[in-house]
């Protein structure tokens, strides 16, 4: 983690999100620096997923600003697809394309979005699959892979786009316990490699070990944030204490 942290990659200012009359995010301010790993914790329904999904505009913020590098992406005039090219996202349910092999899953957006040549896209796909330890599953269909393998393909697929930031929304929650580790290893590896990451997870061990910063959310607001040591060992807010008390 020797990467310089002076540059802000994602900057969120007074972000509000309503679903109908339900206010899910109630004014979020958050900066994520280059190379920083921010782990977002919080009880179910606190708005963690919504926050991540706002960052790549899968949800449209109701109010507030989100800057991605030098672009105000909440500006209606900004190009959503262009922004998303540089923001990788990994979902709880993997969302691999079931009709394509692992390799083709990774090649598709490279070819259609980044307009890479077939050869280059293929080379990168194989390289990324090797990185996540699946060089023997290149031609497998998603249905032929275990959940953990599918999730690693999904990570490889996002990484092939050369993202500037990676969003992980409970990437391991759908996995059988014995498969969780392989995915977390890949994520740890990625963090060590200097990737900027926003991670929603319930894996406290991972958060403590990998996070540069832990953000605790509840009912649509950031209640507390700090280093893992600060938040885990010495939580200030009663809500954080309560949450961590239930977990451990």
């Amino acid at each position, binding site marked *: 983690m020797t990467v310089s942290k002076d540059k802000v990659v994602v900057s969120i200012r007074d972000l509000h999100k309503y*679903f109908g009359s339900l206010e899910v995010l109630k004014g979020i301010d958050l900066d994520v620096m280059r190379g920083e790993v921010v782990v977002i*914790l*919080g*009880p*179910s*329904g606190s708005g963690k*997923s919504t926050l991540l999904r706002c960052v*790549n505009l*899968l949800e449209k913020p109701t109010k507030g600003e989100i800057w991605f590098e030098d672009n105000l992406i909440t500006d209606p005039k900004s190009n959503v*697809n*262009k922004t*998303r*090219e540089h*923001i*990788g*996202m990994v*979902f*709880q*349910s*993997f*969302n*691999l*394309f*079931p*009709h394509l092999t692992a390799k083709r899953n990774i090649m*598709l*957006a490279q070819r*259609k*979005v*980044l307009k890479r040549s077939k050869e280059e896209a293929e080379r990168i796909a194989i390289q990324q699959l090797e990185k996540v330890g699946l060089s023997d599953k290149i031609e497998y269909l*998603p*249905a032929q892979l275990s*959940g953990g393998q*599918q999730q690693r393909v*999904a990570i490889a*697929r*996002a990484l092939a*786009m050369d993202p500037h930031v990676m969003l992980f*929304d*409970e990437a391991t*929650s*759908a*996995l059988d316990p014995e498969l969780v580790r392989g995915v977390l290893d890949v994520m740890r590896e990625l963090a060590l490699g200097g990737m900027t990451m926003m991670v929603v997870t*319930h894996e406290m061990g991972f958060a403590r070990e990998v996070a540069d910063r832990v953000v605790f959310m509840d009912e649509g607001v950031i209640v507390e944030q700090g280093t893992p040591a600060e938040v885990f060992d010495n939580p200030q807010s009663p809500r954080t204490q309560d*949450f961590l008390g*239930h*977990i451990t």
Partner: protein
Amino acid sequence: MTYVRVAVFSLLFVLLLGSLLIAFPQSAEALETESVTATRNEDGGTDIIGGKPTRLSWEGRVGNNEKVMQIVINFPEGCELADDAYLFLQEVIMDDPMHPRPDNAVKHEYELTQESLIINFTDGLRPGNKVIIQVYGFQFPAITADYYITGTYVDDKGLSHILKEYSRPVSVIGGTALENFLVWLSERDWVKAWNSNAFCNSFLNPVRAVASVPTLFGGWLISVALVALGFPLAIPVGLGISFLRMSKLWILRFLSSIYVNVIRGTPLFLQIYIAFLGLPLFISGMDNFTTGFIVLALNSSAYLAEIFRAGIQSIHKGQFEAASSLGMNGIKTMFFVIIPQTVRRVIPTMTSEFILLFKDTSLLAAVGVFEMMMFAKIQSNISANITPYVVAAGFYLLVTLPLTRVISVFEKKLAATDGKEAPPEDKKKKKPETKRVGLFKTTVPAAVNQDTGNG
């Protein structure tokens, strides 16, 4: 001036005279053949087929100054008579040319053989009268040729004359291999026994069945061509409509839903009538076939639109999100991610839609498109037998049964792979809510907040 008037009057006079002459043609001096015709055979086509019973008609006119005591008609070589052949004779009394009086009770004796027909008139045919001679159960040779009927007659002075040869021959088509086979078939004992049962004869007459196969096959090809052109046309139209149905713009959704609901809410039969009466008013030069497959395509596009829409909406919303998060726009997402997955799911329903459309080609018979149903109807009418319809049913099944099989194979495959594809969190946490849409099961995305936390 007067010169012109005279010219006009004389012209009118000439015209009047001319028309009178046409109306009352001058009677000839001797018995003349006025026409020789044969009716088409009972089972089809406009051709007179050799080797099969037909009705030979001979008409002539007695000369002005003679009576006709005997007529001899010589048949071409190789003609035959059916067992139940008989003669019909009529003298048309022309005393008042404006009101010819038919007389069916001419006193006569006759001798009918394969070579000739000899008729002796007890009182003679009177001058100027017409005579109509019809031989039922007459068979021309089964050789394609133009046949001339010749003959002689004897007048009241006992003089024999040659009948002037009628200039128009009877054109006969020689029996085809099929015709000959049908004759052979109809003479089999088992066929006769089978046909002696009224039900078997009406519905499953072997001779009628074989006889109808060639024409019905032609009609079947047209029916197949109608769907083969109509259905592929319906697919892109239906896909386009399904996109409009899911559009963000309410006006597009509104218009496309009108299209879909009107077409699905009214009978195709009615749409066919509207199109066949309406389209020619606006587009000239559209033949029945083209109009036919276009109506079928438009009709089917509405059903396909709903099939596609259901198919696309059955794709887990995570697929759209994954594609979006990779920077793919809506069109790329549709064509590279959603549609390829939808195709597999909609193939069974699309196939049954194809089957429906194929059967619906039969409705076009009502507006004169020569497809299989039309031919079956013609065949049935001329033979007064239901068998051609039964054969047509077989031809429809030739397409629909294998396709029905295809559907069930695909459905089994789908059922086998669908489970594997379901997002794992559905398996572990929430039971996927399945419902029937059309013929196939779809997994409906779980509720909005699918990330069930365990915090």
